[in-house]
């Protein structure tokens, strides 16, 4: 961190929040930093006071897996709309996946996405670089150029498509060591999943939909952890969805292999039983699995076998979902429901406390993505990327009231706990009183957080 920006007036005094659900504290936010933490601080003149009675203060959430669709599919989402959704959902940083059009496989495209994120000013937008040119799985993209660019890419992924060629995967794992990068693998054996429509099992047998077997994910993860061990590289596994994958990850971590993994909120809550409706809002890749898988994923997230929550936020225009199941696009929105779903599935079940919540939604994803200013403790001198959450709130999910352009939320109609009351991004409130406030101003960005 080379500097901090001025905030309006004399900063913000958050009064009576519970950091990580602990004892109530006042937090003074000034110049992009947490200037002071302690009880009973008296505000200076010009300091705006925010009453945080009953609210929990948490580090801003960091998403390792977001589809912002720009450039190329601005009818589905833009960096502006997607990052507004992120701020409302309690995120202060998102990783924009590379499967845009053109693909984010050059320094030029990742710098464009990075700049769009800076201009929008709602969250830190960190582009993910493609592993292979055009996501074609044939030859490595210029990973070094993307790493050296203004976007400082550290996470590389062909997400949506598996890097299935074992030699290419090995080379990519080795190559990114030069700049402390990580390969985020979309684990899906392509031959085993040709035409796959849903989880292969009891439900697919009845519905007559082509199965996506768990083994297609697990076999790739098994191969990749062994590759990562062999070349001593860092591997990240995207959207883990099966109990078998959890077992492989647990084994790999026990052997000291440098592997991390994420799970989506929808895989922590929903099962393939929902597909019986043939409503494509439940169509997603990897597919919704069984109740046993859901339980295994929850336990793995709680015990650290799975490091992080990644939303895999995937907005689609309505015509891509208002059709037959087989023709529908895969993917679900998730930015504005992630906090509530994780609270519901993990915190209210007693599997995680709020400290654990912060670990899986902020600290670990920031570490994996090498985001120096995110996922930090709520302590004096730290960057003021934090959120205030009302854990007692209950709300009913209505996709039409979301900031994302995507209406494809599988949680529509569901009542969920937890509401983001405020989001502070670099000391600036992008969200206040549960509504969008203002983005970080361009002028402030010029001086802040370069390098």
């Amino acid at each position, binding site marked *: 961190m080379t500097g901090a920006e001025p905030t309006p007036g004399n900063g913000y005094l958050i009064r009576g929040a519970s950091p990580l659900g602990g004892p109530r504290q006042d937090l003074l936010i000034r110049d992009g930093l947490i200037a002071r933490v302690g009880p009973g601080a008296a505000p200076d003149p010009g300091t705006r006071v925010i009453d945080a009675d009953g609210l929990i203060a948490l580090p801003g959430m960091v998403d390792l897996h977001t589809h912002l669709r720009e450039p190329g599919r601005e009818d589905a989402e833009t960096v502006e709309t997607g990052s507004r959704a992120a701020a409302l959902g309690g995120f202060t940083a998102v990783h924009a996946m590379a499967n845009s059009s053109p693909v984010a496989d050059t320094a030029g495209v990742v710098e464009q996405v990075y700049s769009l994120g800076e201009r929008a000013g709602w969250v830190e937008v960190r582009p993910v670089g493609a592993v292979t040119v055009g996501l074609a799985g044939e030859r490595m993209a210029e990973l070094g150029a993307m790493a050296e660019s203004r976007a400082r890419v550290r996470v590389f992924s062909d997400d949506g498509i598996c890097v299935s060629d074992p030699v290419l995967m090995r080379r990519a794992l080795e190559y990114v060591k030069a700049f402390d990068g990580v390969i985020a693998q979309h684990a899906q054996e392509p031959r085993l999943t040709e035409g796959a429509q849903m989880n292969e099992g009891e439900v697919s*047998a009845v519905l*007559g939909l082509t199965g996506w077997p768990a083994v297609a994910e697990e076999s790739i993860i098994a191969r990749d952890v062994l590759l990562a061990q062999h070349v001593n590289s860092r591997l990240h596994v995207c959207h883990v969805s099966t109990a078998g994958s959890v077992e492989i990850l647990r084994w790999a971590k026990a052997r000291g292999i440098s592997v991390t993994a994420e799970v989506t909120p929808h895989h922590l809550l929903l099962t393939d039983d*929902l597909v019986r409706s*043939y*409503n494509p809002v439940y169509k997603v890749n990897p597919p919704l699995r069984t109740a046993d898988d859901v339980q295994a994923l929850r336990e793995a997230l709680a015990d650290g076998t799975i490091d992080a929550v990644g939303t895999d936020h995937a907005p689609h225009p309505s015509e891509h979902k*208002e*059709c*037959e199941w087989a023709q529908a696009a895969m993917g679900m929105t998730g930015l504005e429901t992630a906090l509530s779903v994780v609270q519901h599935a993990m915190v209210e079940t007693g599997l995680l406390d709020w400290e654990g919540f912060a670990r899986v939604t902020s600290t670990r994803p920031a570490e994996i993505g090498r985001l120096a200013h995110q996922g930090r403790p709520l302590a004096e001198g730290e960057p003021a990327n934090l959120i205030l959450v009302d854990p007692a709130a209950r709300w009913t999910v209505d996709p039409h009231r979301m900031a994302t352009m995507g209406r494809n939320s599988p*949680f529509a109609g569901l009542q969920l706990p937890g509401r983001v009351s405020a989001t502070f991004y670099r000391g600036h409130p992008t969200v206040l009183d549960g509504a969008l406030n203002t983005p970080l101003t361009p002028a402030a960005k010029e001086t802040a957080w370069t390098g």
Partner: protein
Amino acid sequence: MKHLLSTHDLALHDALRLLDTAEEMAAVGEREIKKLPALRGRTVVNLFYEDSTRTRISFEAAAKRLSADVINFAAKGSSVSKGESLKDTAQTLEAMSADAVVIRHPASGAPARLAASGWIDAAVLNAGDGTHEHPTQALLDAFTLRRHWAKVAGTGSPGSDLTGMRVLIVGDILHSRVARSNVWLLKTLGAEVTLVGPPTLLPVGVDTWPCTVRYNLDEALADRPDAVMMLRLQAERMNAAFFPSTREYSRRWGFDDARLAALDTLGLGDTVIMHPGPMNRGLEISAAAADSVRSTVLAQVRNGVSVRMAALYLLLAGGTHDHPAAPTVRENPALSPTKEPAV
């Protein structure tokens, strides 16, 4: 009943009502004037996204015998081939005041989607969707079996079920909508169903179905079935490495002359051979078996019209909408193994 989408959720009394009504419709088919005025002024659309002359003309004959106006909408040569969505097509048919839509579609679940989407108010009849279900085929098979089972027992068909009847379904279960619909319906009617086929053509998860699974056809025949239903082997399966060759398939799972003779050797005088058609003679069924007195192939076709008349009649003029045959899936129960959502 509002729609007929599957047999999976068809209650016994609805199934019996359909079959009993079909018996009455069959009686109409034996009259000199094979026509009832029941659906006069009603419009039935045959919306076919897949070629199927047999099923389409069966539905067309059924609708016409009930005096309905019939519109045939084939996906080929229509706006569908120009990329029109199912939604737009459905809304077009709605604007034309279709009372019933008979839909054949290559995508599993397309009829359920049509019925649940709110795009159209018409009754939806599934005439075969992908590898999911083909409920009227199962109903006509059940109708055929029920008549046979009643004859063997020396009783009347109406009101009876298939309790105690042993039925083999042989072939490509994985890709068969006919097999799925039959498994659920025959079980509901009290039959004991055994599936026989190569392990590659049985779905993962079949162990949870209410039936027995076997790999050996000769052993299954030795267990003295009352009916053997042979499934059509689709041409595209032959090139996809589900089995080594069509000759090997035919030897192991085809109903050949030797197996036809075995029925006599086993003393199974009343065992019938069924096939939904069209048949691959010499592949899954030998010519002698297809043409034998045991074969019910043509009776199945004839009964198809009666059963489809019954379905159209009950959906459009049947009155009570008490027990929908549509699947009643709660959306968004947000399954939570450890805790119910706070609702």
